[in-house]
């Protein structure tokens, strides 16, 4: 019998390691309602984390507002110009909406643009490691949150998807995480693709057809084929690449949501199908 097998502590460590690997295999993938023990741990620590997170945000907002003071006047003038331009556009769009509705009625088109209802939430903490981009929010199954619901930022851009749900907290997987993939659509050219995180804070859109006219500046939204509601803005195309010898294009996409300074989010509660 080898000497290390006589060391009870070593055997104990091996047993724990095997148990942990099985736990990893069992829990990997997410999309479950967490056990009561996990839920309680999160419930105890969430309020504490919420306090610290908001302290951090307040301090960083204070410093960033000092930095912005000098540019406020120029920015205001720019925005006023933008408002004039947009209100003109708005009148034009109203005309189009009326015309569209009239034509739809004539053709008996079924309206499948359901409005989304959302529930606001605060972010309470972010993943401690450097590998994953996940965060926790302060609403859970008590507020009607279920796994696989979409999470948007304040302006309605897609941020992530709920993975595990506790009583009053839940885990959210960001779209910039390496594990995330979303079916997406170029609004201008109607090309479909898959948007995945590339672990540098950017997104990669893959499986774009080779003859696609996709170019820099195009808006990418969720497509109707994903489990997300369609038309949620993901980001803008920054660079289009064509692999040598590959029959597909891919694009680097800059996410529209600001993941560094995320503070409040909204959870979409009327998804097409939500797990369980």
């Amino acid at each position, binding site marked *: 019998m080898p000497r290390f097998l006589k060391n009870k*502590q070593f055997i*104990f*460590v091996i047993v*724990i*390691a095997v148990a*942990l*690997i099985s*736990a*990893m*295999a069992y*829990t*990997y*993938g*997410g999309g479950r309602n*967490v056990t009561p023990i*996990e839920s309680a*741990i*999160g419930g105890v*620590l969430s309020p*504490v*984390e919420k306090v*610290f*997170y908001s*302290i*951090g945000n307040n*301090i*960083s907002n204070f410093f960033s507002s000092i930095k912005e003071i000098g540019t406020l006047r120029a920015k205001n003038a720019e925005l006023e110009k933008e408002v004039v331009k947009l209100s003109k556009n708005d009148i034009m769009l109203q005309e189009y909406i009326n015309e569209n509705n009239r034509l739809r009625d004539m053709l008996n088109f079924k309206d499948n643009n359901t409005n989304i209802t959302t529930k606001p939430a605060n972010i*309470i*903490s*972010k*993943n*401690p*490691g*450097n*590998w*994953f981009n*996940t965060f*926790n929010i302060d609403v859970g199954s008590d507020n009607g949150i279920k796994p696989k619901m979409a999470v948007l930022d304040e302006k309605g851009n897609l941020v992530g998807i709920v*993975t*595990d749900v506790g009583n009053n907290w839940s*885990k959210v*997987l960001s779209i910039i995480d*390496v*594990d995330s993939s979303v079916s997406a659509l170029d609004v201008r050219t109607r090309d479909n693709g898959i948007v*995945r995180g*590339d*672990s*540098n*804070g950017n997104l990669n859109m893959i499986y774009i057809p080779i003859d696609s006219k996709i170019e820099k500046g195009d808006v990418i939204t969720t497509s109707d084929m994903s489990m997300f509601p369609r038309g949620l803005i993901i980001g803008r195309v920054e660079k289009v690449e064509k692999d040598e010898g590959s029959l597909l294009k891919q694009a680097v996409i800059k996410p529209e949501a600001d993941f*560094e300074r995320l503070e409040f989010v909204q959870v979409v509660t009327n998804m097409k199908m939500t797990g369980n």
Partner: protein
Amino acid sequence: MRSIYKYLLIIFAIVLQTTLMKYIAILGVKPDALLILVISFSLLNGTGESITLSLFGGILVDVLFNNAIGFVTISLLIVAYLTGVLSKNVFKESTFVAFVFVFLGTILYNLIMIFSMLLMKYDLNPPYLLNVVIVQSVYNSLITIFIYRYIVRFNSFIKSKKFFFKV
């Protein structure tokens, strides 16, 4: 009973790690307070301590933040146990020894995590991985230089029982 402070310190480190640590990230890489604490205590107190503390801290982090429960715990357990085994042969209170242990420990910790990610079929990006591993090990070990003496003092405070027994 003073060892309860140790567990409270670990909870506090996790809370800080997940809320405020993102403001002191260098090149987008955060230091790991939990790893520094667990390695330091394993170095000072041996293998028994390394098993309990890595299980406590690791499972807490995994339950709160990770999809695969055990992802952090197993890396932490291996690193802490190795540190505990090797700690018999070194001069424990030396900051330089802690510096070396944290530097090598962070590299091993991240390599085990990368290995688990490979098993889970993540799409990995090698230059970025290397960047994170190197930056984090330097950052962690630099932090250790400044805080290790306080950890040693805290540890002897926990161990000392004279207030309760000798008076």
